[in-house]
């Protein structure tokens, strides 16, 4: 069916080349974030050649921040459909707490605990989707409320305490086992990036999500079931939030009811910053991943230089506003792929 061969006469018309200058600007924009990241590495490497530029440091960054990559990937799905999911960090803590409670307090096998956590994520997504589409309430409000509600559940089931002693089986497959010196968590995040990239770019589902996000009326009149698409996106983001929660539990070997919440803002910062590169003007998985590592590298460097934790807030908060400003500027211009 795809044997849609392009006639020679049309091809020459279509691929009339762009001027070289434009192409250069194009590349600079696409890979600007990657270049900025390399520059940050070079800068801190020059100041702290021994501690910062060590493989150990980078393998820690890559491994431990894989959770944030998954959160950012979860966020870009509803963002592409023009919906916000601010409950994702609450789903993350809920999911890691379910793993902790079931595995440690109830002695359930780790596999079953993980399954329960992921199922909970899907359920939260369906609840979000119901209120957003059937009740027609803005996604920001729905997910804010549902997220807070879930946080209450998490505190209740954990008695507001950290549960440690989660099965080493999980910890092993997330943080301890390494490939080329980098924990497996990083590769999970990269596989997810590739899958999402494929879905967004090469499936009808991905195209539909994009249309729903750009203009719901056009999408509806093009025969897309917009409500179904939006519910699907919210379920997908909650599912990825739950997956991030499982990985988080595996990263630390424990579940604590609060610390996971701090992933929300960096996740949004990375999602928006990522939308300025790779495929500028669109939320895209590779851009989001690069953005996560750009932000984390900067923060790690500053922390090593002796700045204390307030630098996180300065960096992430500033990055979010600057990223949104940049993506606003980019989206006003031509689409490319």
């Amino acid at each position, binding site marked *: *069916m*795809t*044997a*849609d*061969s*392009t*006639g020679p006469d*049309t*091809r020459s*018309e*279509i691929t*009339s080349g762009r001027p070289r200058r434009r192409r250069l600007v194009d590349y600079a924009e696409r890979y600007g974030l990657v270049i900025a990241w390399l520059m940050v590495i070079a800068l801190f490497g020059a100041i702290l050649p021994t501690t910062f530029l060590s493989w150990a440091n980078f393998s820690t960054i890559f491994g431990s921040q894989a959770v944030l990559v998954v959160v950012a990937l979860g966020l870009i799905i509803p963002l592409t459909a023009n919906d916000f999911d601010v409950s994702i960090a609450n789903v993350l803590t809920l999911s890691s707490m379910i793993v902790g409670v079931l595995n440690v307090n109830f002695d359930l096998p780790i596999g079953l605990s993980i399954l329960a956590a992921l199922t909970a994520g899907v359920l939260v997504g369906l609840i979000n989707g119901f209120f957003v589409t059937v009740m027609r309430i803005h996604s920001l409000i729905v997910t804010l409320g549902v997220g807070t509600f879930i946080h209450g559940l998490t505190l209740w089931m954990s008695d507001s305490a950290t549960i440690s002693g989660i099965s080493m089986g999980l910890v092993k497959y997330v943080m301890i086992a390494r490939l080329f010196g980098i924990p497996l968590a990083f590769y999970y995040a990269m596989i997810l990036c590739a899958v999402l990239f494929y879905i967004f*770019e*090469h*499936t*009808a*589902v991905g*195209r*539909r999500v*994009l*249309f729903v996000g*750009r*203009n719901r*009326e*056009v999408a*509806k*009149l*093009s*025969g*897309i*079931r917009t409500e179904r698409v939006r519910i699907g996106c919210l379920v997908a983001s909650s599912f990825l939030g739950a997956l991030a929660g499982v990985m988080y539990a595996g990263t630390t070997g424990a579940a604590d009811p609060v610390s996971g919440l701090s992933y929300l803002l960096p996740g949004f910062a990375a999602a928006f910053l990522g939308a300025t590169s790779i495929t500028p*003007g669109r939320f895209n998985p590779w851009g989001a991943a690069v953005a996560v590592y750009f932000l984390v590298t900067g923060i790690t460097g500053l922390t090593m230089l002796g700045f204390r934790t307030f630098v996180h807030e300065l960096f992430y908060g500033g990055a979010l506003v600057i990223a949104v400003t940049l993506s606003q500027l980019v*989206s006003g211009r*031509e*689409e*490319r*792929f």
Partner: protein
Amino acid sequence: MPSSDPPAEPTRPLLEIDGLSKSFGGERALDRVSLTVARGEVHGLLGRNGSGKSTLIKVLAGYHAPEHGGRLVIDGRPVPLPIPPGGLRQYGVAFVHQNLGLIPSLTVVENLYLTELAARNRWRLSYRRLSRRARALFASYGLAIDPETEVRRLSPVQRALLAIVRAVGELRRTTRATHKGLLVLDEPTPFLPRSDVEHLFALIRSITATGASVTFVSHDIDEVTKITDRATILRDAKVVATVPTAETSAERFVELIVGRKLSAVRPVAREVPQRDADIRIEDLSGGTLEGVSVALRRTEIVGLTGLIGSGFDELPYLLFGAPPARSGRLHLGDSRFYLDRLDPPQAIDAGIVLIPGDRLNAGAVGSLTVTDNVTIPVLSTVYRPWLLSRRAMTGRTGRLCRDFDIRPNNPGLRFDSLSGGNQQKALVAKWLQADPRLILLDEPTQGVDIGARRTVLDAISQMAGRGAAVLCASSDFDQLASICTQVLIFSHGRVQSELVGDEVRKETIAEHCYGSTGGGFNPVSMGAAT
């Protein structure tokens, strides 16, 4: 009375317009227009779309600057031209435009005293006092409107009444002692149910009873006959005549508006939908439409038209399930659909396509490429939905661009970088590639240049030739006459008349549109009189 005012002359007209002209890019919109409005009279302003009546109102409201040479005198005082926006307020002229200028989420009181509340610098507002004032005001006009409800809960006619009462209030505040003011009503009736128009007229009569004048802009002859004392008719940017309403027959009005002697129009019987028709729409109700039935055959192009507010432009959307109708059935070949349950995906599966009139808000996403927009409805039918090939999609779009003469032929361009005409051609390509059985069009050549217009109309005729049925909603009579085999004329939500064969001509369509507004005037008696 301020000393600067010239002595009032009760016999002198309140408003005198003399030789007003305006052009847009070489096109005459107003050509030396002159008219007068007397004190206490209701003066009608009649004409087709594009006759110049809205341009005239916009000049008076201060949106357009007229050309040199015109004069405007109000109550004996010459008004310097051009008028700044809202500048006529201080001369005692108030406007109610078709959109009414109300804020739906605010209450009646808040809307009523909006300008006052915004302008006055007071810390404490007594809503109780304002409410009481509003209640008294409504009571004085015999209106039953609760000042504390939100405007969005009012019926359409209540909203129109509120806007008019508000404008009259403005007149009261600004009017000088020498005259009672002039209220300009710019087509307030098209979206009102017929029975409610009477309420509006009662209000207009009580306003003129106080000595104020009203200018009533309309294209509904029936209404003009009922409410006005005199009427000025505009055609092709010129004043054709100003006539006393009581002495003018409805036929004469149609003649003045349309611009030619009326031929004897044969009475046109509404045919019962034929049994052998390929596509039958039965008893469709939704939006303003009530019980509409249409039958058409494959290869037929049926035009839908009527005056603004008649509902003809809602039919394509209701048949596509966007939004679903209240009730009705659609027979398409052997399949039957209930129109209250139809949604766009089902419609598309059944071979129905809709090309909306609003290209960038309903037709396509401007920020995505031509390829993205053109391929979206066929993603799962033409390609493997889990393995889309960018190359194949671009290639297909390139070929469609060539077939439909879309320029430049570059599928990678952003959709909104195309000109209006090429955008429309791309939308036609988007929908006609799937070989539809029923094509629904809404204003297919609006804002489209002549070349593109040809391409679009040719493509539609070609699809009809290959076996599709076409329903085309349009207010462009020329276009309807050139492509349609049959034209349905709507009035107040119903099909009023049906033109076929030789009758499908620009002039006949216009006659029926303006002549078929129901009430005390119909084409049958008109035929008898000629």
